[in-house]
C-alpha cells in the first residue's frame, strides 16, 4: 500500500496557485503524506488527486484544458483520479459558460450563468463571506466534503458566475446571495467541486480540504 498521495494543481497559466498549494501543505493530522505539484501538463495515471484551481476565466482556461482534456477525462472515467474543482475549477466540470467561448469537461450536466438580481444595491462579483447550507439529504453518508459540518460554516467567495446543475442530486450545499440560490458544493463519485475558495475560508476551508484528502485516501488506499 502506498502511503503518499500525489496531488496535482493544474496551472492554466493565469494566476496565483500558491494559496491552494500552501493550504494543502498546512493540513496536519492526516493519516497520509501529501505531495503537491503545480503543472500545466496532466499525464494519465500519474497522480491520485487533481485540483482545478479557481483563478482566471472560463475562456482563459481553455488552452490548457484542451491540451489535457482527453487525459483527464480518461482518468476520471477510469476512476484513476479524484478531482476537486474550486470556483472556476468547479464551473469547468460543467458543459459551458455564459462567461465565454469554450467547453468545460462536461462531467456534470449543466451550464454556468451570470448573477442577476433585482435586489437593491446588488453587487457582482459576489465577493466576501457567506454561509453554506447543506441540503438535508446530504448527511454524513452522502456528502464527503461536508462531513462534520456544524451548521455554522462560513466560506469565502469571489465570483460573477455560478453553475446550474441539471442533476440536482449532485448538489450537496447551497448558498444564497441576495435572493439567488446557487450550488456551493457539488459531488458525485470521484468528482468534487466548491464554488467558494477553501484555501481562503479559514476553519471551514481546512475541514473541506481535509475531507477531500480523506476522500482521496478512501478512494485510493482502501
Amino acid at each position, binding site marked *: 500500500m502506498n502511503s503518499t498521495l500525489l496531488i496535482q494543481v493544474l496551472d492554466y497559466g493565469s*494566476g*496565483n496557485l*500558491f*494559496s491552494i498549494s*500552501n*493550504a494543502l501543505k*498546512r493540513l496536519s493530522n492526516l493519516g497520509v503524506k501529501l505531495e503537491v505539484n503545480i503543472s500545466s501538463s496532466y499525464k494519465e495515471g500519474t497522480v491520485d488527486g487533481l485540483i482545478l484551481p479557481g483563478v482566471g476565466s472560463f475562456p482563459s482556461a481553455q488552452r490548457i484544458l484542451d491540451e489535457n482534456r482527453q487525459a483527464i477525462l480518461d482518468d476520471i472515467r477510469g476512476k484513476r483520479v479524484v478531482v476537486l474543482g474550486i470556483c472556476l475549477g468547479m464551473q469547468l466540470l460543467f458543459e459551458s459558460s455564459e462567461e465565454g467561448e469554450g467547453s468545460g469537461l462536461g462531467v456534470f450536466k449543466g451550464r454556468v450563468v451570470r448573477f442577476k438580481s433585482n*435586489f437593491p*444595491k446588488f*453587487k457582482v*462579483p459576489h*465577493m*466576501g*463571506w*457567506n*454561509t453554506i447550507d447543506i441540503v438535508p439529504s446530504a448527511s454524513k453518508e452522502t456528502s464527503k466534503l461536508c462531513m462534520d459540518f456544524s451548521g455554522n460554516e*462560513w466560506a*469565502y467567495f*469571489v465570483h460573477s458566475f455560478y453553475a446550474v446543475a441539471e442533476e440536482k442530486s449532485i448538489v450537496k450545499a447551497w448558498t*444564497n*446571495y*441576495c435572493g439567488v440560490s446557487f450550488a456551493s458544493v457539488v459531488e458525485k463519485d470521484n468528482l468534487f467541486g466548491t464554488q467558494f475558495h477553501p*484555501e*481562503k*475560508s*479559514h476553519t471551514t*476551508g*481546512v475541514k473541506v480540504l481535509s475531507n477531500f484528502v480523506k476522500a482521496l485516501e478512501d478512494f485510493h488506499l482502501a
Partner: protein
Amino acid sequence: MPHTKRIIPCLDVKDGVVVKGVRFESLKKAGDPVKLAEEYCNDWADEIFFLDISASREGRKTMVSLAKMVAAKLDIPFTIGGGISSVEDARKVLSNGADKVAINTSAVRNPELVGELRDIFGQQCVVVSIDARRNPKTNSGFSVCTLGGTFDTGLDAVDWAKEVERKGAGEIVLTSIDRDGTGEGYDKELNNKVGSEISIPLIASGGCGKMGDFFEVFKGENSPDAALAASVFHYGAMRVQEVKRYLRSNGVAVRL
C-alpha cells in the same frame, strides 16, 4: 444572504515590523506582522490589510517577501498596499500570494493604472486607498492627500472616489487623516458622502477608538461595507470577536 459587514485589522508595516502612527507621525512599534495576522485570523477577522507605510515616502519597493510569508500561513484573504506603482509591482505581490493590491499615491499620479490593473488581474484584486482630510476649498469639504497623508492634492475626495470606480476599482479604503490615530471615531460625514456616490464596497478607516465607533459607522443606508482598524486591536484594547459579538447583538450582520 446579502453581505455581512466586515472587520479588517490593518497592519502598518515599516521595515518588516508593525507600527501605528498618530496622524501618521511618531510611530510606535507593535509587533511581528505574520504572527499578528494569524492571531487576527483566529479571532474572526474577515480579512487583513497590510500597508507598507514607509514605501511611498521613501520610494521603497513593495513587500513581496511579506506577501510570501503571509500567504504560507494565512487562510483568509489579505491585501497589500504601499509603494505599488506599476503593473509589475502588483504582479509580484499577487503572484506571491496576496489576494488584492491597494494603490494610493500612484493612482493619483497615474489614474490609468487602475484600469490596467483591472484588465490584467480582475476588478476584485484592485483596491484604491484614498487618504482624505477636511478642506473647505473643495465641493464636498474633503480633499485627497498623497505621500502618506503629507501632501494635499486639492482633488475633491468624492469626485476622486467616483473616478476610480469608473476606472475599475473593486473597492475603496477611505482613511480620514484628521481622525487617524486619534481614537475619536470614524469620520461619518466623510464616509456617508463617499458611500452615497459609489456602488463598489467602501471600507472606512481612521479614528476607531472604541466598540461603539464600529456600530456608529455601520448605521444608515450608505454606510460602509467594512471597517478597518489598527491600534485598538494591536494594543489589545479589544478583540475582533468581541467587536463582532457586540455588533451582532446590536442588529448588525457579521460573520461569527
